[in-house]
Protein backbone atom coordinates (compact mmCIF):
# COMPACT_ATOMS: atom_id res chain seq x y z
CA UNK A 1 0.00 0.00 0.00
CA UNK A 2 1.51 3.32 -0.97
CA UNK A 3 1.35 6.72 0.65
CA UNK A 4 -1.41 8.03 -1.67
CA UNK A 5 -3.69 5.12 -0.84
CA UNK A 6 -3.27 5.69 2.84
CA UNK A 7 -4.05 9.39 2.46
CA UNK A 8 -7.32 8.64 0.70
CA UNK A 9 -8.61 6.41 3.50
CA UNK A 10 -11.66 7.63 5.38
CA UNK A 11 -10.73 9.13 8.80
CA UNK A 12 -10.15 6.35 11.31
CA UNK A 13 -10.52 8.45 14.43
CA UNK A 14 -12.32 11.37 15.94
CA UNK A 15 -11.45 13.63 18.84
CA UNK A 16 -14.24 14.14 21.30
CA UNK A 17 -14.67 16.34 24.32
CA UNK A 18 -15.94 14.71 27.47
CA UNK A 19 -16.40 15.28 31.18
CA UNK A 20 -15.50 12.13 32.97
CA UNK A 21 -16.26 11.79 36.63
CA UNK A 22 -12.85 10.93 38.01
CA UNK A 23 -11.56 10.21 41.43
CA UNK A 24 -8.86 12.52 42.66
CA UNK A 25 -6.32 11.49 45.26
CA UNK A 26 -5.31 14.71 46.87
CA UNK A 27 -2.07 14.55 48.77
CA UNK A 28 -1.53 16.90 51.71
CA UNK A 29 1.89 15.64 52.75
CA UNK A 30 4.99 14.20 51.21
CA UNK A 31 5.06 11.51 53.89
CA UNK A 32 4.69 8.43 51.66
CA UNK A 33 5.13 5.94 54.54
CA UNK A 34 2.08 7.41 56.21
CA UNK A 35 0.20 7.31 52.89
CA UNK A 36 1.01 3.61 52.39
CA UNK A 37 -0.31 2.72 55.86
CA UNK A 38 -3.46 4.80 55.51
CA UNK A 39 -4.20 3.45 52.04
CA UNK A 40 -3.86 -0.11 53.29
CA UNK A 41 -6.50 0.66 55.94
CA UNK A 42 -8.85 2.11 53.36
CA UNK A 43 -8.45 -0.90 51.10
CA UNK A 44 -9.39 -3.17 53.97
CA UNK A 45 -12.54 -1.17 54.61
CA UNK A 46 -13.71 -0.98 51.03
CA UNK A 47 -11.87 -3.45 48.81
CA UNK A 48 -14.47 -3.09 46.06
CA UNK A 49 -13.35 0.49 45.48
CA UNK A 50 -9.67 -0.28 44.96
CA UNK A 51 -9.74 -2.42 41.83
CA UNK A 52 -7.54 -0.72 39.28
CA UNK A 53 -9.49 2.44 39.79
CA UNK A 54 -8.27 5.26 37.53
CA UNK A 55 -7.28 8.35 39.52
CA UNK A 56 -5.72 11.77 39.18
CA UNK A 57 -2.96 12.39 41.67
CA UNK A 58 -3.39 15.95 42.93
CA UNK A 59 -0.14 17.30 44.29
CA UNK A 60 -1.10 20.97 44.10
CA UNK A 61 -2.49 21.03 47.66
CA UNK A 62 0.65 19.46 49.05
CA UNK A 63 2.28 22.29 50.93
CA UNK A 64 4.79 20.16 52.75
CA UNK A 65 8.18 21.09 51.34
CA UNK A 66 10.39 19.61 54.06
CA UNK A 67 11.53 16.84 51.77
CA UNK A 68 11.16 16.36 48.01
CA UNK A 69 8.35 14.18 46.74
CA UNK A 70 9.40 10.79 45.36
CA UNK A 71 6.91 10.57 42.48
CA UNK A 72 8.08 7.16 41.28
CA UNK A 73 7.52 5.65 44.74
CA UNK A 74 4.15 7.42 45.02
CA UNK A 75 2.97 5.84 41.76
CA UNK A 76 4.12 2.41 42.95
CA UNK A 77 2.29 2.77 46.26
CA UNK A 78 -0.87 3.74 44.39
CA UNK A 79 -0.57 0.81 41.97
CA UNK A 80 0.01 -1.64 44.84
CA UNK A 81 -3.23 -0.43 46.42
CA UNK A 82 -5.30 -0.85 43.30
CA UNK A 83 -5.17 2.73 42.07
CA UNK A 84 -4.10 3.35 38.49
CA UNK A 85 -2.73 6.87 38.04
CA UNK A 86 -3.75 8.52 34.78
CA UNK A 87 -2.12 11.89 35.39
CA UNK A 88 -0.78 14.13 38.07
CA UNK A 89 -2.07 17.58 38.79
CA UNK A 90 0.64 19.98 39.79
CA UNK A 91 2.54 23.08 38.80
CA UNK A 92 5.61 22.52 40.96
CA UNK A 93 8.66 22.38 38.68
CA UNK A 94 10.11 19.34 40.47
CA UNK A 95 6.88 17.38 39.90
CA UNK A 96 6.77 18.35 36.23
CA UNK A 97 10.30 17.15 35.67
CA UNK A 98 9.66 13.89 37.46
CA UNK A 99 6.47 13.33 35.47
CA UNK A 100 8.24 13.89 32.23
CA UNK A 101 10.93 11.37 33.19
CA UNK A 102 8.27 8.79 34.15
CA UNK A 103 6.24 9.51 31.01
CA UNK A 104 3.14 10.45 32.92
CA UNK A 105 0.67 13.15 31.90
CA UNK A 106 0.31 16.41 33.78
CA UNK A 107 -2.77 18.56 34.14
CA UNK A 108 -2.70 22.07 35.57
CA UNK A 109 -4.31 22.89 38.93
CA UNK A 110 -7.92 24.00 38.71
CA UNK A 111 -10.44 25.73 40.91
CA UNK A 112 -13.17 23.28 39.99
CA UNK A 113 -15.26 22.17 42.96
CA UNK A 114 -14.42 18.78 44.32
CA UNK A 115 -16.13 17.02 47.16
CA UNK A 116 -14.71 14.34 49.41
CA UNK A 117 -15.78 10.85 48.36
CA UNK A 118 -17.63 8.79 50.88
CA UNK A 119 -16.37 5.29 50.32
CA UNK A 120 -18.89 2.92 51.87
CA UNK A 121 -17.30 0.13 53.86
CA UNK A 122 -18.07 -3.17 52.13
CA UNK A 123 -18.81 -5.25 55.15
CA UNK A 124 -21.44 -2.86 56.46
CA UNK A 125 -23.56 -2.29 53.39
CA UNK A 126 -26.89 -3.88 54.24
CA UNK A 127 -29.46 -2.89 51.62
CA UNK A 128 -31.69 -0.14 52.96
CA UNK A 129 -34.87 -2.00 54.00
CA UNK A 130 -37.43 -0.99 51.43
CA UNK A 131 -40.95 -0.18 52.62
CA UNK A 132 -43.57 -2.81 51.89
CA UNK A 133 -46.98 -1.16 52.07
CA UNK A 134 -49.48 -2.60 54.53
CA UNK A 135 -52.25 -4.79 53.23
CA UNK A 136 -55.51 -2.90 53.70
CA UNK A 137 -58.84 -4.74 53.81
CA UNK A 138 -61.99 -2.62 53.77
CA UNK A 139 -64.67 -5.32 53.84
CA UNK A 140 -65.65 -7.55 56.76
CA UNK A 141 -63.52 -10.66 57.15
CA UNK A 142 -66.01 -13.50 57.53
CA UNK A 143 -65.90 -16.89 59.17
CA UNK A 144 -63.81 -19.29 57.10
CA UNK A 145 -61.79 -16.53 55.43
CA UNK A 146 -58.07 -16.16 55.97
CA UNK A 147 -56.03 -13.09 55.13
CA UNK A 148 -52.23 -13.01 55.14
CA UNK A 149 -50.07 -9.90 54.88
CA UNK A 150 -46.71 -11.21 53.74
CA UNK A 151 -43.73 -9.15 54.95
CA UNK A 152 -46.01 -6.31 55.95
CA UNK A 153 -48.66 -4.99 58.29
CA UNK A 154 -52.30 -5.92 57.94
CA UNK A 155 -54.99 -3.28 58.39
CA UNK A 156 -58.65 -4.32 58.49
CA UNK A 157 -61.18 -1.51 58.45
CA UNK A 158 -64.20 -3.65 59.27
CA UNK A 159 -65.31 -6.42 61.58
CA UNK A 160 -63.39 -9.69 61.79
CA UNK A 161 -65.82 -12.51 62.49
CA UNK A 162 -65.39 -15.49 64.76
CA UNK A 163 -63.95 -18.23 62.59
CA UNK A 164 -61.92 -15.80 60.48
CA UNK A 165 -58.12 -15.68 60.61
CA UNK A 166 -55.70 -12.79 60.17
CA UNK A 167 -52.00 -13.46 59.60
CA UNK A 168 -49.22 -10.91 59.19
CA UNK A 169 -45.45 -10.86 59.29
CA UNK A 170 -45.83 -7.35 60.71
CA UNK A 171 -48.44 -5.70 62.93
CA UNK A 172 -52.18 -6.22 62.76
CA UNK A 173 -54.64 -3.35 63.10
CA UNK A 174 -58.39 -3.93 63.23
CA UNK A 175 -60.64 -0.88 63.12
CA UNK A 176 -63.70 -2.81 64.22
CA UNK A 177 -64.47 -5.73 66.51
CA UNK A 178 -61.89 -8.52 66.39
CA UNK A 179 -63.76 -11.76 67.03
CA UNK A 180 -61.62 -14.16 65.05
CA UNK A 181 -57.98 -15.20 65.28
CA UNK A 182 -55.11 -12.74 64.82
CA UNK A 183 -51.50 -13.89 64.46
CA UNK A 184 -48.90 -11.14 64.09
CA UNK A 185 -45.15 -11.48 63.53
CA UNK A 186 -45.61 -15.00 62.26
CA UNK A 187 -42.10 -14.95 60.80
CA UNK A 188 -40.79 -14.63 64.31
CA UNK A 189 -40.88 -10.84 64.59
CA UNK A 190 -41.18 -10.33 68.34
CA UNK A 191 -41.72 -6.58 67.93
CA UNK A 192 -45.03 -7.08 66.13
CA UNK A 193 -48.20 -5.89 67.84
CA UNK A 194 -51.92 -6.36 67.49
CA UNK A 195 -54.27 -3.40 67.77
CA UNK A 196 -58.04 -3.62 67.73
CA UNK A 197 -61.03 -1.46 68.46
CA UNK A 198 -62.92 -4.16 70.32
CA UNK A 199 -61.18 -7.22 71.68
CA UNK A 200 -63.28 -10.34 71.28
CA UNK A 201 -60.69 -12.59 69.71
CA UNK A 202 -60.65 -16.38 69.66
CA UNK A 203 -56.88 -16.31 69.65
CA UNK A 204 -54.09 -13.74 69.70
CA UNK A 205 -50.53 -14.66 68.81
CA UNK A 206 -47.27 -12.79 68.39
CA UNK A 207 -44.18 -14.59 67.10
CA UNK A 208 -45.72 -17.89 68.12
CA UNK A 209 -46.65 -16.91 71.70
CA UNK A 210 -50.42 -17.06 72.03
CA UNK A 211 -53.46 -16.67 74.24
CA UNK A 212 -56.82 -18.30 73.57
CA UNK A 213 -60.29 -16.86 74.18
CA UNK A 214 -60.58 -18.64 77.52
CA UNK A 215 -57.70 -16.54 78.88
CA UNK A 216 -58.51 -13.43 76.87
CA UNK A 217 -62.04 -13.28 78.28
CA UNK A 218 -60.67 -12.80 81.77
CA UNK A 219 -58.54 -9.86 80.66
CA UNK A 220 -59.77 -6.39 81.71
CA UNK A 221 -59.28 -5.26 78.11
CA UNK A 222 -61.82 -7.79 76.82
CA UNK A 223 -64.45 -6.00 74.75
CA UNK A 224 -62.39 -2.83 74.67
CA UNK A 225 -59.96 -1.07 72.38
CA UNK A 226 -56.63 -2.70 73.08
CA UNK A 227 -53.10 -3.36 72.05
CA UNK A 228 -51.19 -6.60 72.49
CA UNK A 229 -47.43 -6.96 72.46
CA UNK A 230 -44.87 -9.53 73.46
CA UNK A 231 -43.06 -9.01 76.74
CA UNK A 232 -40.42 -11.67 77.34
CA UNK A 233 -42.40 -14.87 76.69
CA UNK A 234 -45.79 -13.42 77.65
CA UNK A 235 -48.44 -11.63 75.66
CA UNK A 236 -49.20 -8.34 77.32
CA UNK A 237 -52.58 -6.78 76.64
CA UNK A 238 -53.41 -3.20 77.51
CA UNK A 239 -56.33 -0.91 76.91
CA UNK A 240 -55.80 1.87 74.43
Amino acid at each position, binding site marked *: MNQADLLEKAPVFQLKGSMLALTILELSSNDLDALAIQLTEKVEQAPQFFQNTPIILALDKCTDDTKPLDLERLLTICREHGLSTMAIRSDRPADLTAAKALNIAVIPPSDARERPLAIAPAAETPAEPSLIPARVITHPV*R*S*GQQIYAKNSDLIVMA*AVSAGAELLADGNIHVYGPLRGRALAGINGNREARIFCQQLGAELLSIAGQYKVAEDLRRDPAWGKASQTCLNEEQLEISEL
Partner: protein
Amino acid sequence: MSKILVVTSGKGGVGKTTTSAAIGTGLALRGHRTVIVDFDVGLRNLDLIMGCERRVVYDFVNVINGEATLNQALIKDKRIENLYILAASQTRDKDALTLEGVEKIITELAEQFEYVICDSPAGIEKGAHLAMYLADAAIVVTNPEVSSVRDSDRMLGLLSSKSKRAEEGREPVSEHLLLTRYSPERVARGEMLSVEDVEEILSIEMIGVIPESQAVLKASNQGVPVILDEESDAGQAYSDAVDRLLGKEVPHRFLEVQKKGFLQRMFGGKE
Protein backbone atom coordinates in the same frame (compact mmCIF):
# COMPACT_ATOMS: atom_id res chain seq x y z
CA MET B 1 -83.40 -5.60 33.99
CA SER B 2 -83.62 -8.99 35.55
CA LYS B 3 -82.23 -9.84 38.93
CA ILE B 4 -80.90 -13.20 40.08
CA LEU B 5 -81.53 -13.57 43.80
CA VAL B 6 -80.25 -16.47 45.87
CA VAL B 7 -81.84 -17.50 49.15
CA THR B 8 -79.11 -19.16 51.14
CA SER B 9 -77.98 -19.87 54.70
CA GLY B 10 -75.25 -22.42 55.16
CA LYS B 11 -77.09 -24.15 58.00
CA GLY B 12 -79.99 -26.41 57.06
CA GLY B 13 -83.63 -26.14 58.05
CA VAL B 14 -83.56 -22.45 58.90
CA GLY B 15 -86.34 -21.42 56.49
CA LYS B 16 -84.79 -20.93 53.04
CA THR B 17 -87.54 -22.70 51.12
CA THR B 18 -90.27 -21.01 53.16
CA THR B 19 -88.57 -17.68 52.38
CA SER B 20 -88.05 -18.41 48.68
CA ALA B 21 -91.73 -19.26 48.30
CA ALA B 22 -92.88 -16.21 50.26
CA ILE B 23 -90.57 -13.68 48.62
CA GLY B 24 -91.11 -15.07 45.11
CA THR B 25 -94.88 -14.99 45.58
CA GLY B 26 -94.70 -11.48 47.06
CA LEU B 27 -92.75 -10.18 44.05
CA ALA B 28 -95.22 -11.73 41.63
CA LEU B 29 -98.14 -10.28 43.63
CA ARG B 30 -96.59 -6.85 43.06
CA GLY B 31 -96.59 -7.45 39.32
CA HIS B 32 -93.02 -8.68 38.78
CA ARG B 33 -92.58 -11.68 36.52
CA THR B 34 -90.88 -14.16 38.81
CA VAL B 35 -89.58 -17.72 38.72
CA ILE B 36 -88.50 -19.73 41.76
CA VAL B 37 -85.88 -22.39 41.07
CA ASP B 38 -85.35 -25.32 43.46
CA PHE B 39 -81.65 -26.15 43.66
CA ASP B 40 -82.12 -28.80 46.33
CA VAL B 41 -81.68 -31.79 44.04
CA GLY B 42 -82.75 -35.01 45.75
CA LEU B 43 -84.66 -33.22 48.51
CA ARG B 44 -87.08 -31.15 46.56
CA ASN B 45 -89.79 -29.51 48.59
CA LEU B 46 -90.35 -26.12 47.03
CA ASP B 47 -93.10 -27.70 44.95
CA LEU B 48 -94.77 -28.96 48.15
CA ILE B 49 -94.69 -25.56 49.79
CA MET B 50 -95.99 -23.96 46.60
CA GLY B 51 -98.69 -26.65 46.33
CA CYS B 52 -97.76 -27.74 42.82
CA GLU B 53 -96.14 -31.09 43.54
CA ARG B 54 -98.75 -33.00 41.54
CA ARG B 55 -98.03 -31.00 38.43
CA VAL B 56 -94.29 -31.66 38.22
CA VAL B 57 -93.48 -33.46 34.98
CA TYR B 58 -90.02 -32.25 34.10
CA ASP B 59 -87.48 -30.73 36.43
CA PHE B 60 -84.29 -28.64 36.48
CA VAL B 61 -82.05 -31.63 35.75
CA ASN B 62 -84.16 -32.70 32.78
CA VAL B 63 -83.70 -29.25 31.27
CA ILE B 64 -79.95 -29.26 31.90
CA ASN B 65 -79.67 -32.68 30.27
CA GLY B 66 -81.72 -31.55 27.29
CA GLU B 67 -84.50 -34.03 28.08
CA ALA B 68 -87.05 -31.23 28.19
CA THR B 69 -87.24 -27.61 27.16
CA LEU B 70 -87.38 -24.87 29.73
CA ASN B 71 -90.96 -24.04 28.83
CA GLN B 72 -91.99 -27.68 29.26
CA ALA B 73 -90.48 -27.74 32.74
CA LEU B 74 -91.72 -24.38 34.03
CA ILE B 75 -94.83 -24.78 36.21
CA LYS B 76 -97.18 -21.84 36.20
CA ASP B 77 -98.69 -20.97 39.56
CA LYS B 78 -102.47 -21.47 39.65
CA ARG B 79 -103.19 -18.57 41.99
CA ILE B 80 -100.93 -15.78 40.86
CA GLU B 81 -100.13 -14.31 37.49
CA ASN B 82 -96.44 -13.89 36.67
CA LEU B 83 -95.29 -16.68 38.98
CA TYR B 84 -93.49 -19.83 37.85
CA ILE B 85 -91.66 -22.68 39.52
CA LEU B 86 -88.81 -24.84 38.27
CA ALA B 87 -88.74 -27.97 40.43
CA ALA B 88 -85.70 -29.95 41.46
CA SER B 89 -85.33 -33.59 40.64
CA GLN B 90 -86.32 -36.00 43.37
CA THR B 91 -84.53 -38.98 41.87
CA ARG B 92 -81.14 -37.56 41.02
CA ASP B 93 -78.31 -36.60 43.30
CA LYS B 94 -76.49 -33.31 43.69
CA ASP B 95 -73.93 -34.14 41.02
CA ALA B 96 -76.61 -33.95 38.36
CA LEU B 97 -76.13 -30.17 38.34
CA THR B 98 -73.14 -28.79 36.47
CA LEU B 99 -71.87 -25.23 36.43
CA GLU B 100 -72.24 -24.97 32.66
CA GLY B 101 -75.74 -26.43 32.79
CA VAL B 102 -76.85 -24.14 35.60
CA GLU B 103 -75.36 -21.07 33.97
CA LYS B 104 -77.10 -21.80 30.67
CA ILE B 105 -80.53 -22.32 32.22
CA ILE B 106 -80.36 -19.45 34.70
CA THR B 107 -79.20 -17.08 31.96
CA GLU B 108 -82.12 -18.21 29.83
CA LEU B 109 -84.51 -17.62 32.72
CA ALA B 110 -83.04 -14.18 33.32
CA GLU B 111 -84.02 -13.27 29.76
CA GLN B 112 -87.65 -14.18 30.46
CA PHE B 113 -88.13 -13.10 34.05
CA GLU B 114 -87.62 -10.01 36.15
CA TYR B 115 -86.70 -12.04 39.20
CA VAL B 116 -85.02 -15.43 39.27
CA ILE B 117 -85.15 -16.74 42.85
CA CYS B 118 -82.68 -19.55 43.57
CA ASP B 119 -83.66 -21.68 46.58
CA SER B 120 -80.32 -23.00 47.79
CA PRO B 121 -79.74 -26.35 49.44
CA ALA B 122 -78.13 -26.34 52.89
CA GLY B 123 -74.38 -26.45 53.33
CA ILE B 124 -71.51 -24.64 51.66
CA GLU B 125 -70.68 -27.38 49.17
CA LYS B 126 -71.29 -27.71 45.48
CA GLY B 127 -75.09 -27.39 45.54
CA ALA B 128 -75.03 -24.19 47.58
CA HIS B 129 -72.20 -22.83 45.44
CA LEU B 130 -74.11 -23.44 42.22
CA ALA B 131 -77.18 -21.73 43.65
CA MET B 132 -75.29 -18.57 44.60
CA TYR B 133 -72.71 -18.47 41.81
CA LEU B 134 -74.68 -16.30 39.39
CA ALA B 135 -76.48 -14.19 41.97
CA ASP B 136 -76.82 -10.42 41.77
CA ALA B 137 -78.29 -10.31 45.26
CA ALA B 138 -78.51 -12.67 48.18
CA ILE B 139 -80.98 -13.12 50.99
CA VAL B 140 -79.09 -14.80 53.80
CA VAL B 141 -81.57 -16.59 56.04
CA THR B 142 -80.61 -16.84 59.69
CA ASN B 143 -82.18 -18.10 62.89
CA PRO B 144 -81.43 -16.22 66.09
CA GLU B 145 -78.92 -18.71 67.39
CA VAL B 146 -75.13 -18.73 67.40
CA SER B 147 -74.52 -21.65 65.03
CA SER B 148 -76.91 -20.33 62.41
CA VAL B 149 -75.40 -16.86 62.59
CA ARG B 150 -71.91 -18.33 62.25
CA ASP B 151 -72.95 -20.25 59.13
CA SER B 152 -74.52 -17.15 57.64
CA ASP B 153 -71.29 -15.29 58.25
CA ARG B 154 -69.45 -18.06 56.43
CA MET B 155 -71.92 -17.84 53.56
CA LEU B 156 -71.42 -14.06 53.32
CA GLY B 157 -67.70 -14.68 53.04
CA LEU B 158 -68.25 -17.13 50.19
CA LEU B 159 -70.57 -14.70 48.42
CA SER B 160 -67.86 -12.07 48.50
CA SER B 161 -65.16 -14.40 47.23
CA LYS B 162 -66.66 -17.33 45.29
CA SER B 163 -69.52 -15.78 43.34
CA LYS B 164 -69.17 -15.02 39.65
CA ARG B 165 -69.34 -11.32 40.43
CA ALA B 166 -66.45 -11.67 42.86
CA GLU B 167 -64.43 -13.78 40.44
CA GLU B 168 -64.89 -11.23 37.68
CA GLY B 169 -64.18 -8.33 40.03
CA ARG B 170 -67.56 -6.77 39.32
CA GLU B 171 -69.70 -4.93 41.85
CA PRO B 172 -70.21 -7.38 44.72
CA VAL B 173 -73.38 -9.39 45.29
CA SER B 174 -75.72 -7.20 47.32
CA GLU B 175 -76.39 -8.78 50.69
CA HIS B 176 -79.61 -8.82 52.67
CA LEU B 177 -80.16 -10.48 56.00
CA LEU B 178 -83.44 -12.17 56.85
CA LEU B 179 -83.86 -13.27 60.45
CA THR B 180 -86.59 -15.84 60.86
CA ARG B 181 -88.24 -17.97 63.57
CA TYR B 182 -87.75 -14.95 65.81
CA SER B 183 -89.41 -15.16 69.19
CA PRO B 184 -89.33 -11.94 71.24
CA GLU B 185 -90.37 -13.92 74.33
CA ARG B 186 -87.38 -16.22 74.05
CA VAL B 187 -85.09 -13.28 73.36
CA ALA B 188 -86.41 -11.62 76.54
CA ARG B 189 -85.63 -14.81 78.45
CA GLY B 190 -82.12 -14.76 77.06
CA GLU B 191 -82.61 -18.01 75.12
CA MET B 192 -82.11 -16.42 71.72
CA LEU B 193 -79.98 -13.74 70.13
CA SER B 194 -81.73 -10.42 69.65
CA VAL B 195 -82.08 -8.56 66.36
CA GLU B 196 -79.38 -6.16 67.57
CA ASP B 197 -77.02 -9.03 68.44
CA VAL B 198 -77.38 -10.58 65.01
CA GLU B 199 -77.06 -7.26 63.19
CA GLU B 200 -73.94 -6.46 65.15
CA ILE B 201 -72.29 -9.78 64.46
CA LEU B 202 -73.06 -9.85 60.75
CA SER B 203 -73.05 -6.11 60.11
CA ILE B 204 -75.31 -6.15 57.06
CA GLU B 205 -78.67 -4.63 56.39
CA MET B 206 -81.68 -6.48 57.82
CA ILE B 207 -84.37 -6.95 55.20
CA GLY B 208 -86.86 -8.70 57.42
CA VAL B 209 -87.51 -10.26 60.80
CA ILE B 210 -90.04 -13.08 60.54
CA PRO B 211 -91.59 -14.22 63.82
CA GLU B 212 -91.80 -17.85 64.85
CA SER B 213 -95.32 -18.63 63.75
CA GLN B 214 -97.85 -21.43 63.63
CA ALA B 215 -99.01 -19.94 60.36
CA VAL B 216 -95.86 -21.20 58.61
CA LEU B 217 -96.50 -24.86 59.36
CA LYS B 218 -100.18 -24.47 58.51
CA ALA B 219 -99.36 -22.79 55.22
CA SER B 220 -96.79 -25.36 54.18
CA ASN B 221 -99.16 -28.22 54.99
CA GLN B 222 -101.74 -26.60 52.74
CA GLY B 223 -99.25 -25.88 49.99
CA VAL B 224 -99.86 -22.13 50.20
CA PRO B 225 -96.94 -19.72 50.60
CA VAL B 226 -97.37 -18.06 53.99
CA ILE B 227 -97.28 -14.58 52.48
CA LEU B 228 -100.75 -15.29 51.09
CA ASP B 229 -102.03 -15.65 54.66
CA GLU B 230 -102.44 -11.92 55.06
CA GLU B 231 -103.86 -12.22 58.55
CA SER B 232 -100.75 -13.94 59.90
CA ASP B 233 -97.83 -12.21 61.53
CA ALA B 234 -95.34 -14.21 59.43
CA GLY B 235 -97.24 -13.37 56.24
CA GLN B 236 -97.20 -9.67 57.07
CA ALA B 237 -93.55 -9.74 58.03
CA TYR B 238 -92.66 -11.37 54.69
CA SER B 239 -94.77 -8.80 52.91
CA ASP B 240 -92.76 -6.02 54.58
CA ALA B 241 -89.55 -7.77 53.57
CA VAL B 242 -90.64 -7.81 49.91
CA ASP B 243 -91.38 -4.09 50.10
CA ARG B 244 -87.93 -3.44 51.55
CA LEU B 245 -86.36 -5.58 48.83
CA LEU B 246 -88.06 -3.28 46.33
CA GLY B 247 -86.57 -0.27 48.05
CA LYS B 248 -89.45 0.87 50.28
CA GLU B 249 -88.76 1.95 53.81
CA VAL B 250 -90.97 0.00 56.13
CA PRO B 251 -90.59 -0.17 59.93
CA HIS B 252 -89.95 -3.61 61.42
CA ARG B 253 -92.88 -5.23 63.21
CA PHE B 254 -93.28 -8.13 65.63
CA LEU B 255 -90.03 -7.40 67.43
CA GLU B 256 -91.57 -6.78 70.85
CA VAL B 257 -93.13 -9.21 73.27
CA GLN B 258 -96.88 -9.18 72.52
CA LYS B 259 -99.15 -7.97 75.30
CA LYS B 260 -101.34 -10.84 76.32
CA GLY B 261 -105.01 -10.59 75.37
CA PHE B 262 -107.79 -10.80 77.92
CA LEU B 263 -108.41 -14.53 77.53
CA GLN B 264 -104.71 -15.33 77.62
CA ARG B 265 -104.38 -13.32 80.80
CA MET B 266 -107.29 -15.28 82.27
CA PHE B 267 -106.02 -18.71 81.30
CA GLY B 268 -102.37 -18.28 80.40
CA GLY B 269 -101.01 -18.25 83.96
CA LYS B 270 -99.02 -15.38 85.35
CA GLU B 271 -96.13 -13.80 83.58
